[in-house]
């Protein structure tokens, strides 16, 4: 079968985005707007004149910075969609504003910053109180950031 999907290859060399027809995007999905990976928070269509063709109006929020981006394009166009990955790591310690995280394979990563804002304070507080927490890390277009925490089971 020609259209069979190959699940066996790993993601080495996988591109960080893939194209998708504008009309097939969905609210709460992801899209690249102005070069930034965004979560689609609003999607509407319009047309020029009664017999015109549809255009899609997208509003997205940068998944890392929270900044808002907008774009409008013909609905037949392809847009880039970022590959999004999420991983849970156990928090080992916080040092100089960086997180030390234990991966599933037992390696330690120390390249992720403690996020700013509420979540960062929360992580720090839990860590200082000696609680065991898991940190969810989201990765897209070779950028990574902690996005959530939950107590270890």
């Amino acid at each position: 079968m020609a259209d069979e999907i190959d699940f066996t290859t790993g993601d080495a060399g996988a591109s960080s985005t893939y194209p998708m027809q504008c009309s097939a995007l969905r609210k709460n999905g992801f899209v690249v707007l102005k070069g930034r990976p965004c979560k689609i928070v609003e999607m509407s269509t319009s047309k020029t004149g009664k017999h015109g063709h549809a255009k899609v109006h997208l509003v997205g929020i940068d998944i890392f910075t929270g900044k808002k981006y907008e774009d409008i394009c013909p609905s037949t166009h392809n847009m880039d969609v970022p590959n999004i990955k999420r991983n849970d790591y156990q928090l080992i310690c916080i040092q100089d504003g960086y997180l030390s995280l234990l991966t599933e394979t037992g390696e330690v990563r120390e390249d992720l910053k403690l996020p700013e804002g509420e979540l960062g304070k929360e992580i720090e507080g839990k860590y200082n109180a000696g609680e065991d927490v898991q940190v969810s890390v989201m990765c897209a277009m070779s950028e990574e950031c902690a996005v959530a925490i939950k107590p270890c089971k």
Partner: protein
Amino acid sequence: MSSVFQRYLALANQVLSWNFLPPNLGRHYIAMFESSQNVLLKPTESWREALLDSRVMELFFTVHRKIREDSDMAQDSLQCLAQLASLHGPIFPDEGSQVDYLAHFIEGLLNTINGIEIEDSEAVGISSIISNLITVFPRNVLTAIPSELFSSFVSCLTHLTCSFGRSAALEEVLDKDDMVYMEAYDRLLESWLTLVQDDKHFHKGFFTQHAVQVFNSYIQCHLAAPDGTRNLTANGVASREEEEISELQEDDRDQFSDQLASVGMLGRIAAEHCIPLLTSLLEERVTRLHGQLQRRQQQLLASPASGSADSKVLDDLYEDIHWLILVTGYLLADDTQGETPLIPPEIMEYSIKHSSEVDINTTLQILGSPGEKASSIPGYNRTDSVIRLLSAVLRVSEVESRAIRADLTHLLSPQMGKDIVWFLKRWAKTYLLVDEKLYDQISVPFSTAFGADTEGSQWIVGYLLQKVLSNLSVCSSEQDLANDTVQLLVTLVERRERANLVIQCESWWNLAKQFASRSPPLNFLSSPVQRTLMKALVLGGFAHMDAETKQQYWTEVLQPLQQRFLRVINQENFPQMCQQEEVKQEITATLEALCGIAEATQVDNVAILFNFLMDFLTNCIGLMEVYKNTPETVNLIIEVFVEVAHKQICYLGESKAMNLYEACLTLLRVYSRNNVGRQRADAPAEEEEQYQDLLLIMELLTNLLSKEFIDFSDTDEVFRGQEPGPAANRSVSAADVVLYGVNLILPLMSQDLLKFPTLCNQYYKLITFICEIFPEKIPQLPEDLFKSLMYSLELGMTSMSSEVCQLCLEALTPLAEQCAKAQETDSPLFLATRHFLKLVFDMLVLQKHNTEMTTAAGEAFYTLVCLHQAEYSELVETLLSSQQDPVIYQRLADAFNKLTASSTPPVLDRKQKMAFLKSLEEFMANVGGLLCVK
């Protein structure tokens, strides 16, 4: 002087707009009448002398003639006349007097408006006068006035309708803010519908000529020059700027549905004229469209870079065809919800009347060759006109399909594409496989061309399927068009007889295979369209087939779904690769398809579909664990459960329902384990995700609870032979699942989340349901949960919308009754209800509240009073003792005495409760506003 006169007119208008209500009407009715905008004049007999005196109406006509140039006063005087035009009721001693009055009035009206040029400010008023006359006076009174007078009246109506229609079109071109002529035109067209709907009082053909005129003028206003006057102003053709149209703008077929329904009805009355007219207008435009597209294609071939030439010619053609198809659709068929629409009798008669002159074979040839010009077929004039009109639309459709094949999609109008499939859907519902049993007599051309077991119907089904495929292959970018297209597909398979034909078509099987393989272009379709497509494919599977074919069909449609899904999730390293984009897409597509399958549930297929879906649900729970980090997937998984519960729970027997309850419970457990204590980055998008999860979970719980209200499963017949014996060991009940769910939701709910109105309403709906259905479970709740539930109720009563407040009040009654039953005076619920007594008491006596809530509040109040009589007396005492004004004190004391007089001592008994509610109404009327804190 003139301002005095204006006051006089305004006063007269007020008097004539009085509501003459019978004295003993309930408060609810009074409120209803007071809120209604249009009051018809129905005075008592005592007004006979004043109003039936013909000099009164003459006076108003004279007044109007004198002041009509002053637009303010003219509106008042016309309103007075409109009120007089609605005169009815006991004021008329007999029918004769009513006839005299009407004749006199119409004479006055005609004298006033004939021969004058109507001012803009008069249009709406005049149309109200006419509309009132036609609505209020019975048909037999209308026909009893001198026939010449009646004819002049109808002619005048025709003239006004056409003229207002033209002015309305002008208003649209000039983009006026205040569309007075459009409003007047709407009203007159509506009056026509009222007038002709009950036409047995008039001799046959009486309205035909008038209908022709109104119909022609409607068509004329909507066609471009030279046939019509669209966009024409006094200074020539207005060049309308191409404006941006948002998706929220209603389609013309909905926005103008009332107008189109009237025009369609008039078209049926004058079928002899209108059907051939529409046919020739459409056929002519098909030829032109075809020519235009060919020319553009050649231009493109000659110089591919020529790009966008002027599109005006094409756009004009599209707009013409758009309106012609809409009118044709409304003329040929009705849109009915749920029931089978019938071929309109006028159309049937028209076809039968001419069937002797018709050559059936040529008719079938015209129908079966949409690619050829109708006039190129020998003997084309001896064909059934109704079928020829249909075939004219098919010709438009064919030009469109060919343009798609020639890669000219960018030149086509998606709007016209929508019109075509909308028409075909409407037509197919009514005409395709026409059921002869439903009609007294049936037209031979119809039964030959579209009857059951005819080549014609088989051909059309094949053609429609081709159309659907052609559209879906290119219109993935036009969501509305794709949606209308799949709706046509659903229409073709939702009735068994049609589905039987559909599954004989090869293209149907191709569609099924193509969709199952998830290859382009079908996988570009938006998710709602894909769901509907899946629904259609499943519905088609329940058509009549031999066992082998059926087996093969399901192998093509459903099995690939299962196989692909299992192949993905059973891979050894699935948890590691689950975040890969292809894997995620595969999972998303499967979940979407499951929602579509659930949507296809009907009573006769639920057994098969439930078993099929149940296997998936179990696996979906595993997915919840794997994708716990991926909110959009979690969301979709919950949605699958919501859909299955929504569509299927009402049909499930005890043990199947149990399976579903168990699955839902496990789902909730996993969700809770992964989300309690979870904190996310405070981006607005994250909050919305949580909101959506919670909303879906509440929907799921409400759906599960709905089984307590709506249950079609009493015999369990659909599952016969599959039940593993009586479910003696009930492990889970709906109550357990729902209460568990609530337990889970409550800690996640926050006052911030309650600011989402949909979420708030859904939440309160759910807890009210629970209190109503399982009041006995409430006292058994864990303390925390119990407390937050009571707090939610209090919050709902005091600081939410009135709708939520009403829900909370409704929840109190069963809770108080539960307490009374249990007879424990120290339980937390008992103490809580005591607190609620004070809340409801304050609400009724001290606060301004919505009167609609009095009933719900009253019921809750009475039950609470029964439960806590001593506390109630105390509340009354405290309130009275705080009054300093002896008059108010006395009034209040009397009112409270009267309130409980009929129910002392208060007991939980329906009769007493009703008596109390009645006294409460009096109590509210008497002292309701007395203590309101301002």
